């Protein structure tokens, strides 16, 4: 058998109160796309961070091309030809796209950095992903989807032997994904070893050759993708049987609750739509179509230039999130770290943050017992995996962080809930729990708005879909009309119009 390019031996990683990896041994071969799957908190990200030297394992060794890497560090692993796209976006927000792509690998001319050359190179790499982003633009100006693409471009621009991708697709739509897959297949042919982490099962089957399953910090098993199927994988991951991916739901469209009329912002043009009780309204579109922008405008997070918002037949003024909450609107934001969490605060403090004013006694003191009780309920209800409610949120895995945000907003008991990419980075099991939750909310007569880039999810979880393109609404599909082709057609429609 051909020798593996990368071999991990008996890796254990302990964190305070957590065994993130427990004696994991695994190897990776050249010219293979090797998927790693597992529930949130299974240890996937920890595993790849050990490979790149971003963290030091408590014990065990990383063997590259037959030799153990000593004193591993990002610097060292990069030197050996290992690169990674980390799950958390790792970009320098104040620097340009081009510079981020070539950061610390600058091309020089006369001893100085050649920004011109760098920019033209960057354009070419970005173009391979089927999008166009001005390489001079600062990263902070981009939406999450674009940032993810920049991150991918950064990895692709490197000439390496092992490429690791930790949920690269989380914020991408099918369009960009196809380009990404295309590139990955080319790289594979060139003999690169690729580690691919994703919670989207269909991607595994489309792209990967091998799949390894992790559970609770333990390595479970590796299989050839062609020898397995979705059900088996999921069973191995969650260690129990899961029912249908998208739970059954019968919608009862109730009264009209929310009506948005002629909403315009600096990025949106004349967006109008209505949402009804008991109905799950989906928003589709390509990266940067303006879905997030719409949600934020409705929620009062950004300034609107024009437009009216009506709630239950009454015109309301929503200029700040404070106003929105008063009108019982909640927004579960897409950018978890920047907009949803207090990373340095405990799980408890995160969950109770918005709800705290309802927990005070007559003196304005927060009732500690009550608070803890309520937070524990949320933790249990959402099965947040954390050693205690005092754990700092930054130490949770990505998926569990998302659950903490959900917990916070469910407490608020709002009428209109806008979920912006609620399952981004969430494992299949948890996804189902969230779907069930959404259905439950809808059947309680709440208004649910779901923004998602994962088409199967959107199709499976929406009773009506609004498709956006370039800041406008390009079409609306009723339940029976919803399918992939129609959505994609509408999503790319406006592009032609505006040219």
């Amino acid at each position, binding site marked *: 058998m051909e020798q593996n390019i990368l071999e991990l031996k008996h890796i254990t990683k302990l964190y305070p*109160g957590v065994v993130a990896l427990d004696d994991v041994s695994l190897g990776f071969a050249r010219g293979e796309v090797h998927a790693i799957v597992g529930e949130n908190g299974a240890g996937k990200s920890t595993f790849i961070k050990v490979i790149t030297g971003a963290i030091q394992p408590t014990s065990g060794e990383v063997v590259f091309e037959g030799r153990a890497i000593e004193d591993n560090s990002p610097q060292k692993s990069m030197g050996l030809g290992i690169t990674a796209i980390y799950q958390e976006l790792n970009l320098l927000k104040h620097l340009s796209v081009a510079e981020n792509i070539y950061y610390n690998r600058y091309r020089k001319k006369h001893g100085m950095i050649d920004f011109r050359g760098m920019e033209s190179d960057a354009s070419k790499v970005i173009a391979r992903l089927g999008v166009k982003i001005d390489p001079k633009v600062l990263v902070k100006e981009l939406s999450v989807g674009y940032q993810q693409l920049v991150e991918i471009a950064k990895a692709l621009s490197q000439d390496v032997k092992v490429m690791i991708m930790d949920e690269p697709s989380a914020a991408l739509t099918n369009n960009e994904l196809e380009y990404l897959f295309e590139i990955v297949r080319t790289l594979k042919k060139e003999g690169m070893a690729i580690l691919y982490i994703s919670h989207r099962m269909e991607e595994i089957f489309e792209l990967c050759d091998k799949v390894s399953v992790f559970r609770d910090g333990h390595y479970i098993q590796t299989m050839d993708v062609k020898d397995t199927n979705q059900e088996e994988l999921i069973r191995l991951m969650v260690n129990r049987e899961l029912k249908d991916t998208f739970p059954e739901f019968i919608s009862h469209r109730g009264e009209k609750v929310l009506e948005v009329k002629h909403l315009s912002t600096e990025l949106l043009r004349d967006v109008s739509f209505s949402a009804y009780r008991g109905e799950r309204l989906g928003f589709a579109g390509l990266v940067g179509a303006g879905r997030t922008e719409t949600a934020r405008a409705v929620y009062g997070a950004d300034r609107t230039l024009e437009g009216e918002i009506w709630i239950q037949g009454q015109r309301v003024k929503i200029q*700040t999130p404070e106003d929105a909450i008063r009108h019982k609107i909640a927004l579960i934001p897409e950018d978890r770290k920047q907009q949803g*969490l207090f990373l340095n605060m405990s799980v408890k403090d995160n969950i109770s*943050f918005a709800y*705290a004013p309802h927990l005070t006694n007559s003196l304005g003191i927060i009732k500690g017992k009550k608070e803890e009780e309520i937070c524990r309920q949320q933790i249990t209800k959402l099965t947040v995996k954390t050693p205690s409610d005092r754990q700092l949120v930054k130490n949770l895995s990505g998926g569990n962080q998302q659950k903490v945000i959900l917990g916070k907003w469910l407490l608020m008991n709002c009428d209109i809930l806008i979920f912006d990419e609620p399952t981004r980075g969430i494992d299949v099991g948890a996804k189902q729990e969230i779907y069930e939750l959404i259905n439950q909310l809808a059947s309680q007569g709440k208004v649910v708005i779901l923004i998602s880039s994962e088409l199967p999810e959107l199709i499976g979880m929406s009773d009506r879909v609004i498709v956006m393109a370039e800041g406008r609404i390009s079409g609306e599909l009723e339940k029976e009309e919803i399918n992939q082709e129609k959505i994609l057609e509408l999503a790319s429609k406006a592009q032609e119009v505006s040219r």
Partner: protein
Amino acid sequence: MTEWIREKGKKIEWNNMGIIIALAAMILFFSISTTSFLTPNNLANIARQISIVGICAVGMTCVILTGGIDLSIGSLIGIVVVTCATLMSSGVNPILVVLVGFIIGAVIGLINATCITYLKIPPIITTLGMMISLRGATYLISGGMPIYGIPEGFKILGQGSIGLVPISMLIMVIVFIFGYIMLNKTVFGRRIYGIGGNEETTRLSGVNVKKEIYKIYIMVGMLGALASLILMSRVNSGQPSAGDGYEMDIITAVVLGGVSVSGGEGKLSKVIVGVIFMGVLANGMMMLNINEYWQRVVKGIVLIVAVAVDIRSREKKAKLKAA
């Protein structure tokens, strides 16, 4: 396994003790090397000497927790002291004067907050500008000369004691208790942590961040005014240089108490230790009658060492927990 995790989780709650250990070591050293350090009288002195910095430290903690900073506090003390002393010495009713003092403090806080929230000027620049201007104004009001003629009765605030317990210390303790409850048990306190931890998340959680910033800076201004009145009463006069450089002492005490200058992290229960630490160090070195120059050399080193010990102890805890 679950039990084990749960148990470990509790340990995270342990307060990290580094700075307390450093303080204890220092107290031990001074107690051995001088005869009069550990006497009730001297402890009362220390209490009296730290009360002004202590009161301001509560406000500064809030500001730093939001990720801001207040460099104007020393000059605020100056202008409140000089204005109040001028009024008192010209016979205005002391109660009225105290009121005026608080109003000045609040107004300065209001201006700071307006610059920070509406003009979006970074706190460091806002309060630096304010610091320079207010000190100028203080000298203008006083003509550069100290003001005397404060009513005798007013002395009690800064000089009086109940038994051995100085009144100024009592006030400080009350301020700390209030601050503690506010920061840990009220919505306002949570929001202070929130703003410093992640302002955008706080805003999206329905908090009017600007309003909270106003509240914080006004509170700081009023605490500064309270400290000013104590200082004025203590020296029984209005010195135009009053409070000069205090901002640094206050910030040092707060940071020594483990509050992160980037905001969102820190505990008032440790800030009090920082305040005491600074007071004991100054007092102890004087007791030893160390040469002024050496005092500085030692002070700087002790500061660094204390923080190093504190950080080390936190790391050790983390390791212990992991094992």
